[in-house]
């Protein structure tokens, strides 16, 4: 197991924190926190077996957030000196003074125990930043070269994103946390055309909080459990693409759907994950990302979905992209229920939201504060929100076997949902016709469109644990100024009855 990178722990964040917090206290702040971050990113892109671009970035900086006069103040800087830390603390207080004239509800924070100088590191074997860039590029080049060997593939791309995130947090109450996370997103895609139609087929591999071993499938020479089958998928994709290009266009209508985890994770993200953020339910994202139909008055009463639906919020699941030990407000992370037996029973919280509804979670935040940069203020962000499998739910084939006339949906592609999380439309990588409980070839031009509660109430069954997969994304957007967050969603294969299917070619008026 790994330890926190010494090149981070030798940076002067403790000295800067002490200077900033002392200055904020002297200026009358009732709360002050200091966050120091180093974010390393590397992105590689390959097209047709040639490296197109490789770039590295290393963002290091710090922020001071205060409550002063009942108002928030936030400032950030990049010059790593104690004088600058003091200046940034003073600027945060100055911002709070400006803000106080427009703050009609004094800011409060839910209480949190002090966590005295604790450290946490995510679960991975090999930091991808220790692997030579040329070695990583060679893998991507080889992937696209393999794809191009098939006549069905006219062009192929591959990409790799990697992040090493280090954070130090300190506040006036005495909490001190030092943390490290690694995440990685490898991907490839094949493109082809036939009879004037163009299409693509992409890897289903999800981004994960793992190290380079996710790409090689090995660690210290030994195969890993739960390794992604890259070679199998590379061999399969060209034929799947060829089949898709030759497939018939779907007839729009109402179908039963069996949805694979590689597609359903994104539907969960949009229709449950964002809808159960309490800041949205209370209006704090109304001007940007939107609010939620799952308003607070519906807690304990809203039949979100069928009784087969059990959803958790989770910031502790192994290899989850939103998994961490302590959030960006010094709160120890947790797992809790959001939907149980189909009923809305919980929300995602940070300390300001938890203070507004102290009857939730025993008055304590459930650890959902996150800032994507030292220059950004922490906001309430999504936990890993996951749909539980049924212990005796059966296999994907079992679920397909229960469908007389329907569609099996695999892989994510296009996604969109309204600002209260009612109306959504999703496409996918592959859609298979189901007839009499058997797959009967692919379909083209398919999108499914539904309303959140109709869709989840049409959930007839979830698959067993053997079908459960942790999917996710690097790029969930929220807040002003905009921030991105990485988040995972686990789910089993699931069966939905009577969902509206569109023909996208007809939608385009062609």
């Amino acid at each position, binding site marked *: 197991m790994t330890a926190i990178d010494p090149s981070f722990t030798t940076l002067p964040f403790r000295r800067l924190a002490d200077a900033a917090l002392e200055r904020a206290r002297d200026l009358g702040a009732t709360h002050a926190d200091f966050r120091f971050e180093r974010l390393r990113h590397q992105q590689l*892109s390959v097209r047709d077996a040639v490296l197109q671009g490789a770039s590295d970035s290393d963002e290091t900086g710090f922020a001071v957030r205060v409550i002063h006069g009942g108002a928030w103040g*936030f400032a*950030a800087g990049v010059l790593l000196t104690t004088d600058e830390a003091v200046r940034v603390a003073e600027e945060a207080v100055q911002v709070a003074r400006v*803000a106080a004239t427009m703050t009609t509800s004094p800011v409060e924070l839910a209480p949190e125990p002090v966590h005295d100088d604790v450290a946490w590191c995510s679960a991975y074997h090999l930091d991808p930043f220790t692997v030579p860039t040329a070695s990583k590029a060679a893998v991507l080049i080889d992937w696209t070269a393999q794809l191009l060997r098939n006549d069905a593939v006219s062009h192929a791309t591959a990409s790799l994103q990697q992040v090493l995130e280090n954070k130090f947090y300190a506040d006036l109450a005495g909490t001190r946390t030092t943390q490290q996370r690694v995440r990685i997103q490898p991907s490839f895609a094949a493109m082809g055309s036939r009879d004037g139609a163009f299409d693509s087929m992409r890897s289903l591999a999800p981004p994960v909080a793992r190290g380079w071993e996710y790409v090689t499938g090995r660690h210290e020479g030994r195969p890993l459990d739960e390794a992604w089958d890259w070679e199998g998928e590379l061999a399969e994709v060209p034929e799947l693409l060829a089949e898709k290009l030759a497939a018939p266009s779907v007839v729009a209508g109402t179908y039963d759907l069996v949805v694979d985890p590689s597609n359903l994770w994104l539907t969960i993200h949009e229709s449950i994950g964002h809808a159960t953020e309490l800041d949205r339910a209370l209006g*704090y994202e109304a001007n940007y990302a939107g609010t939620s139909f799952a308003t607070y008055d519906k807690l304990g009463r809203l039949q979100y979905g069928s009784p087969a639906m059990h959803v958790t919020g989770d910031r502790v699941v192994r290899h989850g992209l939103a998994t961490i030990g302590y959030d960006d407000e010094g709160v120890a992370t947790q797992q809790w229920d959001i939907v149980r037996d189909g009923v809305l029973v919980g929300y995602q919280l940070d300390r300001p939201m938890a203070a507004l509804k102290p009857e939730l979670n025993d008055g304590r935040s459930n650890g959902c504060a996150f800032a994507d940069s030292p*220059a950004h203020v922490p906001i309430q962000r999504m936990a890993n929100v996951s749909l539980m499998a049924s212990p005796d739910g059966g296999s994907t084939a079992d679920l397909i076997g229960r469908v007389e006339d329907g569609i099996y949906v695999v892989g994510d592609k296009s996604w969109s949902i*309204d600002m209260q999380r009612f109306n959504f439309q999703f496409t996918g990588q592959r859609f298979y016709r189901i007839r009499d409980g058997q797959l009967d070839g692919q379909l083209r031009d398919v999108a499914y469109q539904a309303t959140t509660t109709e869709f989840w109430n049409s959930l007839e069954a979830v698959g067993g644990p053997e079908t459960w997969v942790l999917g996710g994304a690097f790029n969930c957007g929220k807040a002003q100024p*905009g921030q991105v967050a990485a988040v995972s969603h686990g789910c089993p294969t699931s069966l939905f009855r009577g969902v509206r299917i569109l023909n996208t*070619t007809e*939608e385009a008026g062609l």
Partner: protein
Amino acid sequence: MITPQELVEHALATSSADDTIAIVRTGSRANLRWANNTLTTNGSTRDLTVTVIAFVRRAAGPGGSGGTCTGSVTGSATTREQVSALVEAATAAARDAEAAEDAADLVAGGAAADWDEPPATTSIGVYETFAPALGEAFQRAAGEQRILYGFVDHLVTTTYLGSTTGLRLRHAQPTGHYGCTGKTADLSTSAWVGGATRDFADIDATAMDAELAQRLAWGARRVDLLAGRYDTVLPPTAVADLMIDAYWEAGARVAHEGETVFSRTGGGTRIGERIVRPEVQLWSDPSRSGLACAPFVTAASSGNMSSVFDNGLPLARTDWIRDGELAALLQTRHSAALTGQPVTPYVDNLVLEVNGGAGDVRDLAAGMERGLLLTCLWYIREVDPQTLLLTGLTRDGVYLVEGGEIVGAVNNFRFNESPVELLNRFTHASATVPSFSREWGDDYFSRTATPALRIPDFNMSSVSQAL
């Protein structure tokens, strides 16, 4: 503190690569955010990043062909030591890399006249007039049973680009925008106003609140309509939403290779084909008044629409669609060689004009017998690249127009449409005015000027219950 110019010179002087480009970006930013008639978050931040791009030429040998290899590293750096570390990392990456497919001679030149000027800045003081007026707007809104949610942001970024081929270029970019959503106290009706600015001198919180109050009043009568195709007026903000998507899909290489709406069936691009109505002009110009942006290329990495070798290339007015014909796509020097077309790099602004377009959005609505007037669009995503079919939703105000008058507010809709198709089907266009994309303006692309368009059969695919 060491100046940005000194950081550039230090990077270039200490690099052992055959050539080096250094890009320093230094920025300051101030923002205010509010909800439920109170301020929620805010910030005043400064940042400074240095990008070092190293170029190493490799001779052809028995093991393979030669070429130029590149390495690009970006980091927060405020000292010479930190810049030296970036130079070492970039050079090591270049020595480790494959030869770049987009290799070309680096742009040569000298120092621009403003090279020695210090960075431009902003601070929380930019809201000196706006902030007290906003506080008053909160009070007034609360008294009139209205709730305000919104955000103002101002950032000023100064870019310094230097190269071992002599370039010394500087550009200071102010970017600002405002947006405010108003809701009735029962949350049943919603309205939005927003726009871009360069300095907030022209933004009035009182006028913003008054416009919201009027729009909320239009919603006093509620009309529920079914999904279908409607005669619809898209205001300039919604047109900007859709045109930005079209612009971002205009990469020449992927079009040439058959993957987009701008690909010709059978191979190559549609450059030279009439793709929309002949009155349509779509163009970018870094010197466009009110939308001015960087007049030279900056690229930290290479990709489908950028090349590190093109850093410093001058940008000028570029017609993307001229008289309805596809005139150009986004080209690096590399993709231009592949496609046999002129070099037309990405420019950070976009203008849509329609010959004969006149009046404003209300004039277009006034000409409708029965139809819809939208406010803005949201959550727009590509469904099919070959047709550029987009899906998304209406938001914060869909108004029913009857006999040229706004007679009530309608439920929201999901739409499925292609912006290229819309430019073929519109029946009326207003004059082009500065606009602001609700979807993309905040974080990515705020410099747009577009007309309102009237579409006779806009595809409202389904009803959205969202308020």
